[in-house]
């Protein structure tokens, strides 16, 4: 059973002519894999990641999470799958300004209905895990770029998802911060988390076990398939 699977996924946007962000994608990612997604701008990488994370529904085809077909799930059930199984990291960190590191990370558990004290305790543990145990009460404007993104990663990890999806997580970072974030991803990978990272950084992609290349809404190359 795969952690994530796309079967004949098409995503089109109405218009004349319609835009095919994804034009038929088949892709299976096993538990514990670490995959880089590369491709030119506008090729459909973000769209594909959103499909994998059930943030958006395909026009055609189906998305399976842990072998479960999500096509017929209603929004509540879909959100439950997403909330339980998947963590997201975005290029723009979306941390709440004026809110402490701990509370930003604790927000990752906001929609679990757990009490605030419990959420904060879990946030502290996760922050220690990503090496930010000394930045608990800082606010976003008091953190470096790399630290900010690690807070965003901690927020994605606080509910201990099996799958981590990252859309250009280092796009805004300098090389040192990039290294810190990628080091963290490698550690998570080593601990068994399934990770998919979109990146423009080809040297970084080269260091990942598997690379998928997207072009015009299709998978143009997949290192796992090509060899």
């Amino acid at each position, binding site marked *: 059973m795969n952690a994530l699977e796309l079967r004949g996924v098409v995503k089109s946007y109405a218009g004349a002519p319609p835009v095919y962000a994804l034009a038929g994608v088949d892709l299976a990612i096993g538990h514990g894999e670490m995959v880089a997604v590369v491709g030119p701008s506008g090729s459909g990488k973000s769209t594909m990641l959103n499909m994998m994370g059930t943030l958006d529904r395909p026009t055609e085809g189906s998305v399976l999470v842990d072998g479960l077909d999500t096509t017929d799930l209603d929004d509540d059930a879909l*959100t439950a799958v997403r909330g339980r199984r998947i963590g997201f990291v975005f290029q723009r960190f979306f941390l*709440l300004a004026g809110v402490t590191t701990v509370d930003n990370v604790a927000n990752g558990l906001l929609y679990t209905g757990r009490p605030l004290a419990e959420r904060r305790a879990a946030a502290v543990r996760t922050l220690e895990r990503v090496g930010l145990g000394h930045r608990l009460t800082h606010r976003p404007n008091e953190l470096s770029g790399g630290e900010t993104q690690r807070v965003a990663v901690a927020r994605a990890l606080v*509910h201990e998802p099996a799958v981590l999806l990252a859309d250009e997580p280092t796009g805004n970072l300098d090389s040192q911060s990039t290294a810190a974030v990628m080091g963290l991803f490698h550690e998570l990978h080593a601990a068994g988390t399934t990770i998919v990272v979109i990146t423009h950084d080809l040297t970084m992609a080269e260091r990942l076990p598997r690379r998928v290349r997207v072009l015009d809404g299709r998978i143009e190359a997949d290192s796992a398939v090509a060899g």
Partner: protein
Amino acid sequence: MTAVVDPAATNRSSTSADKSRLRPSDVIRVAVGGLRARKLRAALSVLGISIGIASLVGVLGLSESSKSDLLDQLDVLGTNLLTVTPGEGFGVGDSTLPDTAVVMVRRLPTVEAVTAVAELSSGVYRNDLIPETETGALTVLAAESGLLDTLGGSMAQGRSLDAHADDYPVAVLGSVAAERLGIEDLGQPQLVYVGSRPVEVVGVMVPLPLAEDINRSVVVPRAAADAYLQDDLETTSMYLRTTEGAVLATRDILPATVDPQNPEEVEVTRPSDVLEAQAAAEGAFTSLFLGLGLVALVVGGIGIANVMVMGVIERRGEIGLRRSIGATRRHIRLQFLTESLVLGVIGGVLGVSLGAAVTAGYSAVEGWRIIVPLAAVVGGFVAAVAIGAVAGLYPAVRASRLAPN
């Protein structure tokens, strides 16, 4: 490739236990946090709505306060004063009442007091050099000494007429007459000229809201006037008080009582009707301002909706993030709706307070009793919250439908 055993995968079937939930306390926390991140905008839309609510509460409060002032005044003056005058108009009577009128009216069991008044043909002047035609629109009335009591009036200065003492012409001035004649202080003996005859002023009355005619008159004792000023005095009007509750009945039988031959030539009026009409007119005026307040409120509501809609577009990323951490569409809707409701609640509280403060301040300046109607307070607050809800509905639905990114 090797599949790592994932412990979380084993309890995949327990969907309901893992359903997204948002605690009520967190609903408020999230909404307030969202507003605090956009303080200026939140403040501006609160301002819009609170101005609308304040104007509604203020208008209602001020109209109640001013009306209560008029009604208080009526309470003091009484609504049982009637005036009887000869009907005016073409071919009607000779502008006097029959000699028997006072006696007849006094016999009515529902009449408590009656005072007849006779208008003199001569004008009144400050000195004997002023031409006869320049009367200053003042009249000279000869009255019995009960006039002041019947009218419920009192003296601003000096004394009132005394039937026994005043067998020689002296004058009591109405408030307007005193002003026009330039008589301010009775500390010095003051004279006015009735026709060409000097008459001593012994008193000035306070303004009588129910008898404007008297305010513009110089009143002299009837017997003295008859003897010294004009010998053919005829009653030109009567003021009378009825017993409480018999005002209308008395009013109906007065014309036939005063002039049995020509009852249609007798006009009976109730001066307090004017004050009551004034109170009613204030009510009509209120509706106008109430309308304006409603417009302000609608504009405030549109302001909130505008801020919320702009927020939705701007906060796409935040919405996507919340969806990614497990917020359902319902949670997103709830968040936006709550934000807008909080704006409504704050706007309502501020608006009601502001409206009450304006009412209190203005009433204090005018010397009115301060009345802020409970209905205005509750209604204003409910309206603000309702507007928050309505204004937030569309943006909330839009936010929840938004695709991520």
